[in-house]
């Protein structure tokens, strides 16, 4: 059963629309609750090859390979996944591969699980140290504008761009048991 669209559903749709506009053809991801709607939109899009990964680090190689073949790629991950990629990010910087990463934040606003906090609290700094431009989104109203600007910078200039979707935007993780 599909529930009617709500404001909570509109921001993943805005990201997907930007993917279409900029011509994203491959999307790598590890399944994630915060990205679930965007993942579904990408899987249902015949223009996009969706690649489910065993670890986020694999996605860095995927982006590089896609670019060698003339395709633009994006990665979807949780903040914890950023830590899994740090050394492999060297590939993007060394060769100048344009890349957009959408990061759903954990370990901040209203986090239930303290084990998410150590990585969540260093995610943005870690990305910057690895050479990424970072943008943070707190409000659904800013998603279209910031994701669009980030995609343009990544692929016009072969830059590495990370867009952090705050836990306040995504909503607190709901624990049912």
């Amino acid at each position, binding site marked *: 059963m599909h529930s009617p669209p709500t404001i909570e559903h509109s921001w993943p749709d805005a990201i997907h629309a930007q993917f279409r506009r900029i011509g994203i053809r491959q999307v790598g991801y590890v399944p994630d609750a915060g990205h679930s709607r965007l993942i579904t939109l990408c899987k249902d899009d015949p223009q996009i090859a969706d690649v489910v990964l065993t*670890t986020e680090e694999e996605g860095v*190689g995927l982006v590089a390979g896609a670019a060698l073949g003339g395709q633009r790629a994006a990665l979807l991950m949780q903040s914890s996944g950023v830590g899994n990629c740090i050394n492999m990010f060297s590939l993007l910087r060394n060769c100048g591969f344009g890349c957009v990463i959408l990061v759903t934040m954990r370990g901040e606003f209203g986090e239930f699980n303290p084990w998410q906090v150590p990585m969540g609290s260093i995610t943005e700094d870690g990305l910057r140290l690895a050479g990424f431009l970072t943008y943070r989104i707190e409000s659904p109203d800013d998603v279209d504008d910031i994701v669009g600007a980030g995609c343009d910078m990544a692929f016009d200039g072969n830059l590495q761009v990370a867009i952090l979707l705050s836990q306040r935007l995504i909503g607190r993780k709901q624990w049912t048991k």
Partner: protein
Amino acid sequence: MMDRREFVRELLVDRGDLLVVPGLGSATYDVAAAGDHPLNFYLWGAMGGTVMIGLGLALARPDRRVVAMPGDGDMLMGLGSLATIGVKQPKNLVIVVLDNAHYGETGMQPSHTYAGIDFAALALACRFKHARTVARLAEAADVRALLHSGDGPILVNAKIDAEDVPRVLPLRDGHAIKQRFIEALNSA
């Protein structure tokens, strides 16, 4: 066991329009020694990422044949990639692992394959269409045929000698390697 340079040279004879991604270290030197080519994407790092670069490239260019050539240490670091490739089933991707059962760049310490870990069996468990281990140079022609026309995903584990061979160092500037590759691919 095979001489690694002879084996790689045999694989890349009459390579046509193959796109080749050798892993860091000896694999990159072996592919360079077989003859520099703009459609080689030499890696000098990104250990564990070689076969995923191959997947991204294979998905982007289904009209071309893609060969990822990691060493055994590189393949071990990205074992999960075999499962990821098994899900996507790229028909045009072949992995050739140059397996000398040792970490050549760090002083020839034995790797997991020295203890019998079997990449071909792992690949089959990950739903690769075909996987085999080769250990004789006479089998190189069969492997070459797989590179050009085998139904992927395919993994060939090539057992090579653990001898030290002279380094053949190709381009090292990542931007230059990338740009040369993309220009050659676009002009083909």
